[in-house]
């Protein structure tokens, strides 16, 4: 069971409230889908600059595996106030620990509500149904 201390997008990003910020990452399922578990298959991650404003659902970055470039989508709208530059240099972190060390960005949300996102159980059901 994926962590229930956060919410999920159907495009496999997760969002976790920490203080007044929303921390965003991608799930282990997303990493597996990109690479079949071969951490060396994650080639590059392009993250935005601090200060960029994003809308809910907007693509804020892209991740390249050996065989695909995929979008990274914002679960909430707001200002990007932190970016995990260290993870960009060590992409294996996404495979090793997508839930903590593998965070991607932190958003100061315009609206902190995450009611529109999937809970852990709903996300589990979705990925089971789709595959």
């Amino acid at each position: 069971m994926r962590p229930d201390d956060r919410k999920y997008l159907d495009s496999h990003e997760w969002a976790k409230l920490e203080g007044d910020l929303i921390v965003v990452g991608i799930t282990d399922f997303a990493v597996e889908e990109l690479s079949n578990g071969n951490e060396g298959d994650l080639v590059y991650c392009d993250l935005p600059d601090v200060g960029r404003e994003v809308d809910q659902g907007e693509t804020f970055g892209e991740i390249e595996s050996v065989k695909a470039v995929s979008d990274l989508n914002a679960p909430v709208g707001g200002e990007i106030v932190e970016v995990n530059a260290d993870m960009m240099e060590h992409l294996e972190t996404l495979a090793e620990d997508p839930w903590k060390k593998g965070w991607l960005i932190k958003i100061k949300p315009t609206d902190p509500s995450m009611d529109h996102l999937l809970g852990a159980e709903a996300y589990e059901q979705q990925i089971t149904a789709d595959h």
Partner: protein
Amino acid sequence: MAVWNLIETWDASPGFAMGLDEALLRSVGRPPTLRLYSWAPDALSLGYFQRFGDVPAAAAHPHVVRRLTGGGAIHHHPRELTFSVTLDADDPAYRGSVPDSYERAHEAVIRALSALGVSEVRMRRAEAVGSDLGGTGMCFHESTPQDICWGGAAGQLAKGVGTAQRRTAGRILHHGSIKLGPSPLEPEVATVADRAAEVTPVEAGRALRDGFAREFGVDLEPCEPDAELREAAEAMAGRYSAPEFLHRETRRRR
């Protein structure tokens, strides 16, 4: 039996070649489409995050574009067939992981190459290839286990097909290059002419069409790009060689 669209655009300009793939990718609700195409004039395409400076051949080439898909640079020339598949991400043909989707698509290409007379064509898996060269930045000089290989002119196993995907907004673009004959910018790669009678892109396209139809169990219905699709492709055509895109800064190291 499911029906896919089949579009053929021969001698496409580099911008239109990329623009039509992007227009197809962004056509929400469009049925799965196999597109067969060739390029005129010849051109280099760079990977989405590839540094321009990492491709020595790019500085001297008059026609260079940047793709939406990752990986290395590819030389698109008259002795090459390019193709693309565009479809919804939840289409049964491409469900599952990215590597899983490559298995079926590459099996379709292998069927086509076998039908053209290329012997012992297969995915690389753990075998060593003679086409892996450093320093060129070319896609065909860096292989991965699922890449399609066969015996090249030098007698060594070499990469002869390069493909890549872009996944966005619930849609997938999977496009690729099949080498029919050699290019001085891509030495040591495998070509159809190394192992069989050389064929034209149109002839190779027929074999590829049949390979996809059989592998995916679909009917392919020929169609022309409609006006809306064509206009979208032409509107985007300039983007792929625009300096801000072509020469953009990227921190990707290889």
